[in-house]
């Protein structure tokens, strides 16, 4: 299992198939259940709902205030229903925010999709709380010593998303254009949003 055997493990495959067969026979799974529950994550690979909410917040101060104070209502406006546990943390010139789950891998699926593998691995989870600046530097993000780093460790059922700073040079862009600029990593807090390069 695990890191020493990254490829298909026939033992694991057999166990999964055995379990699946038992759940199918008992009607706990239908033949199409797996396809149905993974469909939205396989389809919804971007632009993400979270990116859209951030883009709208950049353009609309009222929406931004709502997203920061009552994300439940704000998310409905970008098509995410019934997600009442998200807290959005705004990056500023003096504060950079970063999201982690040290105890497992909690992550805001409805707004960001399924987490990347690195988010779920001990290397990120262990280091994000004790040396966030070193971790961010590995992602290419140097945070100046005067800027505070706030790490949000998702230890309860609350979930966190970062609102990155709008980059200079994107004034006048539409919500659609801004949404496309915002990578998932900026919403976790390990990247910034960059203006499109001038060609």
């Amino acid at each position, binding site marked *: 299992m695990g890191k020493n055997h990254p490829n298909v493990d026939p033992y*694991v495959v057999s166990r999964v198939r055995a379990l699946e067969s038992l759940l199918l026979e008992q009607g706990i799974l239908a033949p199409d*259940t797996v396809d149905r529950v993974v469909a939205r994550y396989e389809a919804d690979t971007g632009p993400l709902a979270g990116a859209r909410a951030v883009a709208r917040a950049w353009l609309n101060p009222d929406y931004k205030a709502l997203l920061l104070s009552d994300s439940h209502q704000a998310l409905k406006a970008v098509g995410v229903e019934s997600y009442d546990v998200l807290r959005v943390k705004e990056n500023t010139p003096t504060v950079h925010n970063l999201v982690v789950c040290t105890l497992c891998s909690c992550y805001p699926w409805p707004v960001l999709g399924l987490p990347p593998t690195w988010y779920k691995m001990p290397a990120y*989870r262990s280091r994000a709380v004790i040396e966030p600046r070193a971790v961010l530097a590995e992602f290419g993000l140097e945070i100046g010593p005067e800027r505070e780093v706030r*790490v*949000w460790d998702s230890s309860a059922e609350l979930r966190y998303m970062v609102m990155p700073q709008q980059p200079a040079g994107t004034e006048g862009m539409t919500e659609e254009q801004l949404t496309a600029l915002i990578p998932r990593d900026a919403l976790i807090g390990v990247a910034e949003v960059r203006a499109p390069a001038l060609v």
Partner: protein
Amino acid sequence: MNGSHDVGGMHGFGPVTIDPDEPLFREPWERTVFGMIRATLPRFYNIDEFRHAIERMGNIDYLDSTYYEHWLACLEILLVEKGVVAAGELDRRARLSAAGVLTVTALAAQAAVTVSHPGGISYWREGTEPRFAVGDAVRARNLHPPGHTRLPRYARGKRGTIAAVHGVMVFPDSNAHGQGEQSQAVYSVRFESAELWGESADGRGAVYLDVWDSYLNPAGEQP
């Protein structure tokens, strides 16, 4: 439980390894495991039992296996404990599957199994007034329960400040062990990096944890 899952502040796991091209699932079996968890949680077990089952894998297996292997271990542990599948039958079928002779028959009558939406499970509860208010100085208790807990080791005994009062939520330490929801206030607590890590802190900053009421004392009291 002071287990290998509680990695906050550990050294020795190496650099963060990023695969920019990774697929949503690396193997078809990961996809199946994802679907099986979604079809059985919370029908047969709750989220806290799910997390604690992974913690119960054992420290070496936990670290030496992948995310979806954790989920598979959880399914095997909980569906057997809850009586949904029999351990012997699971083993028998795994052997048949390994030999390529497992016949799978879906129950014909149930084309439409409905699966709860993850956002559809609410952990908010009604409850009493919170004990602490925003700005209060608190200290995380020095707890080391052998069972499930969501107070990571790195915060225990440390002083913090209430940054927000989230509301009342189900208490994992009881809910993971069939001891009811014992719902209580949950706070966002700000712990300064220097308080958590002393001179090893890597600069200005803080960690915000979501902390249940019974994990906390007023700051003046000993942990």
